[in-house]
């Protein structure tokens, strides 16, 4: 606050009849909302971690500060050159709806102070796209794009590699080498903030699923995939991926999907949206750059 600002406030206080000696002016450092608390080394996916990395917990809140649920960061990406991340649409205040940008759903990690960004892309479902029946409106992905705040470091192209069945994390990472489709019998993996690393095989592909009516009436998710990996509450938005053809390569992965639900929870039958379909222009999020930057990234 400079002297001019204090003068303006004093003038306004005088105008409304508040004596100046009743007010104390104090200069305090502006809290840094872009980073985690100092000296906090994360050992679980529920902790705050920078740069923001796929697989970590993310919590939403409305523009008015009411808490939304807890979910998982899918992956970091650039959209039209702007840095952001993908999570499930139902982790935002209004599913399949941009929540009054720029005062839309905010996302933070661990504590409310550690803000990451705000929802910026989540198009409404539309009729007559793909195989969408006439009485429905449809999307191809339960996905939303969260634009990161300026100064928030992003680990684009990298996903946390926790233990199997546990959110414990020892700074191990997977590197995104590309995006690939799903087929029945394909082995896929998921990282969720509750479950940690999970594995299963694709059981069905391209299933059109009615969305729960209490969230969005007459909405259909087109071409969803069903696989046998375990998921629990909090894993929504988590990245689904497969390894490369090289069986000894445990670093590089292909992004496959965005996890969002299942027939029961927790459970070993899980639903995910295809990352390829999530990039449909106009209908979903549009093209995303998901690869690591040329400089590599992946560090602390």
């Amino acid at each position, binding site marked *: 606050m400079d002297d001019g600002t204090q003068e303006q406030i004093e003038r306004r206080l005088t105008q409304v009849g508040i004596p100046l000696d009743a007010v104390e002016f104090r200069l305090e450092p502006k809290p840094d909302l872009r980073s985690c608390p100092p000296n906090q080394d994360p050992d679980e996916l529920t902790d705050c971690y920078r740069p923001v990395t796929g697989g970590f917990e993310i919590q939403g809140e409305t523009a008015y500060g009411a808490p939304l649920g807890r979910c998982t960061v899918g992956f970091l990406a650039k959209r039209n050159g702007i840095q952001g991340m993908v999570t*499930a649409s139902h982790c935002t205040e209004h599913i399949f709806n941009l929540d009054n940008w720029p005062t839309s759903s905010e996302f933070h990690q661990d504590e409310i102070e550690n803000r990451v960004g705000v929802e910026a892309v989540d198009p409404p479902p539309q009729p007559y796209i793909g195989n969408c029946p006439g009485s429905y409106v449809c999307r191809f992905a339960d996905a939303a794009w969260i634009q990161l705040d300026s100064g928030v470091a992003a680990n684009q192209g990298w996903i946390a590699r926790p233990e199997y069945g546990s959110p414990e994390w020892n700074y191990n990472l997977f590197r995104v080498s590309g995006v690939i489709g799903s087929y029945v019998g394909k082995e896929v993996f998921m990282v969720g903030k509750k479950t940690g690393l999970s594995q299963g095989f694709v059981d069905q592909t391209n299933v059109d699923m009615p969305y729960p009516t209490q969230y969005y009436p007459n909405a259909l998710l087109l071409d969803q995939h069903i696989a046998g990996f375990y998921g629990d509450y909090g894993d929504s938005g988590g990245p689904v991926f497969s390894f490369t053809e090289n069986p000894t390569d445990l670093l590089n992965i292909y992004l496959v999907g965005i996890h969002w639900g299942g027939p029961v929870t927790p459970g070993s039958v899980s639903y995910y949206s295809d990352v390829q379909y999530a990039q449909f222009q106009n209908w979903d999020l549009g093209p995303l750059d998901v690869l690591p930057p040329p400089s590599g990234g992946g560090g602390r």
Partner: protein
Amino acid sequence: MLALVWLVSCGTSAEDTSPTSMTDAIDLLVEAPQQARIGDPVILRLTVESKLGTTAELRGANPAQRYFFTIVDSGEQEVWRSRFGEPILRIEDMWTVAPAQKVVYEETWNTKGNDGRPVPPGVYSVRGFVGLTGGPATSDPVEITIRPSQ
């Protein structure tokens, strides 16, 4: 005229066996009429209370999908589940049940199975569930006798 006697069952069986299980923090009480005829709307009621003496802090399904009921036949085969076929979203919500608070959920069963056809007359067991992270809290069952329609 069917007797309007409600069967009541109370308890929580912990499917999550962790020592700090949230299922240990709440009691689930399911109520259903003792008998009904095929075609009758059967009101099922689930009451959730804290059994800690303090506020129970819970994590799990968000409000729209927080509870469900199941009905199994005498062979323990599930014939009906509320929310059957509905995807369950895997967002995690936090909620509390205060010491004196009773959280009540109701659902109407139309005596049809998950396949949409009327269930055969017989004795069935009703359970109520609350979706929690790690595994649902489950009530003890109550029995309901389904008789032929008049």
